[in-house]
């Protein structure tokens, strides 16, 4: 059946027109912790420690960070051997030199190969390469992911739909407050002729956490399926 009633169908599926689940509204009764947030913010302004403008600027700065930043790093590492070497040697400096605000963090890039797949976790809390990927997804902060990833990474990966033969070594990296990792996913086969800017779109957030793989473009899949 043609998709002549696309939108109503998606509303029934609780999906937005862009295909994302609708989020519950925020207009819930005022909570104790919201009162605390408002109070802390106003007290800091009254004491001259910060300003509303500075807080808004910080929110904008964080909002501007998204996995696209990390994807630009990965795509460049795929295309630029000199940058790749610098990144693997010292990811903090290499990404800072690209113009990203890395702060005082020690950042380590770990690379997936034919034999090794890397995953990152923070077993103690929620440390995440937020300077390159933005804020972590909820599951990254969950008890299930924090506990099990270092114990049974293959079963965690399977829940994300990612499986490897037993010959592939799975390496799990436990982040700390001062030391964060980013996974450099394998460049998909068949993308040899793609430009760096086009490759950025193949690098998903999960592929840089290690719970996913870089996307193989559908045109390449079609070419492979068509004799």
């Amino acid at each position, binding site marked *: 059946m043609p998709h002549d009633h696309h939108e109503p169908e998606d509303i029934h599926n609780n999906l937005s027109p862009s295909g994302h689940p609708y989020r519950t509204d925020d207009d819930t009764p005022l909570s104790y912790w919201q009162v605390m947030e408002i109070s802390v913010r106003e007290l800091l302004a009254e004491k001259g420690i910060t300003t509303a403008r500075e*807080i808004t600027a910080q*929110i904008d700065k964080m909002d501007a960070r998204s996995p696209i930043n990390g994807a630009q790093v990965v795509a460049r590492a795929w295309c630029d051997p000199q940058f790749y070497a610098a990144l693997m040697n010292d990811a903090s400096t290499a990404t800072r030199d690209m113009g990203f605000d890395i702060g005082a963090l020690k950042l380590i890039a770990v690379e997936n190969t034919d034999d090794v797949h890397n995953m990152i976790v923070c077993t103690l809390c929620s440390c995440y390469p937020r300077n390159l990927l933005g804020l972590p997804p909820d599951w990254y902060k969950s008890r299930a992911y924090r506990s099990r990833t270092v114990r049974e990474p293959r079963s965690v990966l399977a829940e994300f739909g990612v499986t490897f033969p037993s010959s592939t070594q799975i390496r799990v990296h436990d982040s700390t407050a001062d030391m964060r990792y980013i996974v450099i996913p394998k460049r998909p086969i068949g993308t040899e002729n793609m430009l760096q800017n086009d490759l950025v779109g193949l690098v998903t957030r999960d592929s840089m956490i290690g719970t996913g793989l870089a996307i193989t473009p559908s045109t390449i899949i079609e070419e492979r399926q068509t004799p």
Partner: protein
Amino acid sequence: MNNAKNSPNDHSPTFKLGRRWHDMGGDTAGPITMEQLADTNHDFSLWEKRVDALMIIGSAKGFFTVDGLRRVLEDLGEDAFETMTYYERWIMAVNQNLIEGGAYTTADLAAKMSQVAARGDTYGDAAAPV
């Protein structure tokens, strides 16, 4: 052999000797829920983003370090991890550290919180500039 149970390599939930609740790496746990997997790209609420900003700004201005925040979060205990949301725990930790760092007093906070709470029943009402 009884002491096999207490081997340092035994990461069963019963072996928590010397580990606090937050040190959960290697424990058993259920699957990652569909809700967590599906809601993966949601945006945070304004108040949550403000908590994140207050954490960065308070730290940048030298009132606390990430270690100070972690201490409060870990002292909150396992119960808080299950019952409070992520940014609820963070505002509690930020506030505690700001008081300890001398940004304001508990009396300042108590007075401000009762003023704020009296402004209305929703976040929008309470957060509106006065």
